[in-house]
């Protein structure tokens, strides 16, 4: 039989779970220890932020919240590799990437606190990014569309979408990488494979051995990386972004990680997964791993850790206060963003609602 095509999925890892470097060919950014400390600090602040969110929810000050515990290397790796002019189309828990791009913790709280203003990111570059996307996988097409806009306008920008292992089952994900492959769009699609889609384990989503191989269906470069190793994530992202920026088209990256927390605060993961599995996943903690590596390099220590955590605590307390002080929107806000120009009928409904409120 003759062979029509062959493919290979590579796996990339620089740091093992103990933080031991398993390859010599460190990428340039990783040689810059100051930079790596910055990344580490954002991973830690992301974790502090996340714990604060969960606490807020538990005390009734937030609605349902989707935690990012365990995803810090993947998310910060994604966000830190992107250029400011690039566009991010996230799902709903990529805070590590978003904080890097200027989303404020208070905005995250506002959103999960049931207030649309949380989606109105004030700081660039996040201000031109897409808001959280709850309808699974729909954001992948927004990124593909952004990439198409960049290509048409001949801008050297890249669109990045993130998607879960579960989300990569949805037709939109396939549609996005397919049109990107056909049109050589500057798109990087990152599958953040945290093994679970609420209660559904990875093996029920697909019979594929890797999620990376989904990129083969679109004929585009694809790679699997250790998603708990920020060097690997950041390196794969950097390569993919560079290719995209140079007009060489899209890529898929599978970042293999683990959802250490519940799906959201409305979920109880003990219903469907064993404690052993979670315990084992904790031994691969992305934060511990990077810390060990930085400490071995002599650029981080317990003292710095404590100081930074204290700083983060203060930052988050400040954010929480800003959030809690924020008054609810006026009734008119229910109506004011439906159209650019208010239709007459709607204006009448608006008046009625305001009137009702006054009573």
């Amino acid at each position: 039989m003759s062979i029509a095509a062959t493919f290979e999925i590579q796996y990339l890892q620089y740091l093992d779970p103990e933080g031991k470097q398993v390859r010599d060919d460190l990428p340039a950014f990783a040689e810059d220890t100051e930079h790596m400390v910055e990344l580490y600090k954002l991973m830690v602040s992301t974790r502090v932020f996340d714990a604060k969110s969960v606490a807020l929810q538990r005390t009734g000050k937030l609605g349902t919240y989707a935690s990012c515990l365990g995803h810090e290397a993947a998310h910060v790796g994604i966000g830190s590799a992107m250029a400011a002019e690039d566009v991010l189309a996230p799902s709903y828990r990529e805070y590590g990437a978003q904080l890097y791009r200027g989303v404020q913790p208070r905005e995250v709280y506002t959103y999960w606190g049931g207030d649309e203003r949380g989606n109105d990111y004030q700081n660039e570059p996040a201000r031109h990014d897409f808001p959280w996307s709850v309808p699974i996988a729909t954001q992948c097409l927004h990124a593909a569309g952004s990439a198409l806009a960049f290509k048409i306008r001949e801008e050297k920008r890249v669109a990045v979408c993130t998607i879960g292992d579960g989300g990569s089952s949805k037709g939109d994900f396939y549609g996005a990488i397919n049109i990107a492959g056909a049109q050589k769009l500057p798109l990087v699609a990152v599958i953040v494979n945290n093994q679970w889609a609420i209660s559904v384990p990875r093996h029920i989503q697909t019979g594929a051995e890797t999620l990376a191989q989904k990129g083969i269906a679109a004929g585009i470069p694809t790679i699997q990386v250790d998603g708990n190793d920020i060097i690997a994530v950041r390196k794969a992202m950097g390569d993919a972004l560079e290719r995209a920026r140079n007009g060489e088209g899209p890529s898929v990256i599978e970042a293999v990680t683990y959802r250490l927390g519940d799906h959201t605060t409305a979920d109880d993961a003990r219903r469907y997964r064993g404690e052993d599995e979670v315990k084992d996943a904790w031994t691969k903690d992305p934060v511990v791993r990077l810390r060990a590596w930085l400490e071995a390099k002599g650029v981080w220590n317990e003292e710095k850790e404590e100081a930074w955590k204290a700083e983060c605590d203060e930052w988050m307390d400040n954010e929480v206060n800003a959030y809690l002080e924020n008054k609810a929107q006026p009734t008119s806000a229910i109506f004011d963003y439906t159209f650019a120009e208010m239709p007459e009928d709607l204006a009448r409904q608006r008046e009625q609602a305001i009137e009702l409120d006054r009573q």
Partner: protein
Amino acid sequence: MAQITLIEAVTQALAYEMQHDQSVVVLGEDVGVNGGVFRATQGLQKKFGELRVLDTPLDETTIAGVTVGMAAQGMKPVAEAQFEGFIYPMMEQIACHAARLRNRTRGRLTVPAVFRAPWGGGIRAPEHHSEANEHLFTNIPGLRVVMPSSPARAYGLLLAAIRDPDPVMFFEPKRIYRQYKEEVPDDGEALPLDVCFVLRDGTDVTLVTWGAQVKECLETADALAEEGISAEVIDVATLTPLDFDTIAESVSKTGRCVIVHEAPKTAGFGAEIAARLAEECLYDLLAPVQRVTGYDTHIPLFRQEMKYLPSVERISAAVHKTLAVS
């Protein structure tokens, strides 16, 4: 006999029918071990196995298409959309195939399937988790659109939906999933899918509603009673095909009608009922028909959602407005 909630009644109906009919299967996201995010399918997988209570990949299009395929080959699938806000990817399969395979093939192949989804707002849920979009399905011929509003009706109507030889959209008002309990004998007795339920007799005005707003209407009727106003309350229950006769009879009697629903006003299903009244009961109407509905905006995130949903105050005000006309 135990008292159960609406969501427990859903589980009870599913379990009953799966027990008595081997061709009934449940499929959707997280319906298995987890028993569904609202626990509607709790315990079913343990009882009936992984194939008859199937966790699917995360793709609503897949769920809907596989449901059509199974149904056409002799199964009775009950598919779940995790929230009604995630039902859109099912539309093509529902409109192009589920609703018309019987018609397309002159009855050779049929789709005896149920599409379940938790529906509506009022539970402080995140974005896209509070949609009331039943209107999407009410203009599609060949579908039944059903919405229970009590544990007993959830049980009886779901049994009927599963047994029905045609596809049924079954929308469960999540706001009243656990609002109260009542006795629901597990006797396998279905309720009819072609009638509206008159929940309260009255003479001065007819309140027509469905889903979560049934409760608001009954409460409004209580409040009105204290003022000496007698309101009849109708739970439409099956929106399409509509039992208009029951509504017409009531409005002919009372002469006044307030229609209450959660979806946006314009082109919501309330419009159909008001239109029928204008066509067939014009001379019985003592006052213009009123609609108390969600506004023509997206339901706001939860900090403001109660301002959006029809309330006892708004319904009451509409009733007074219609009574002011003489």
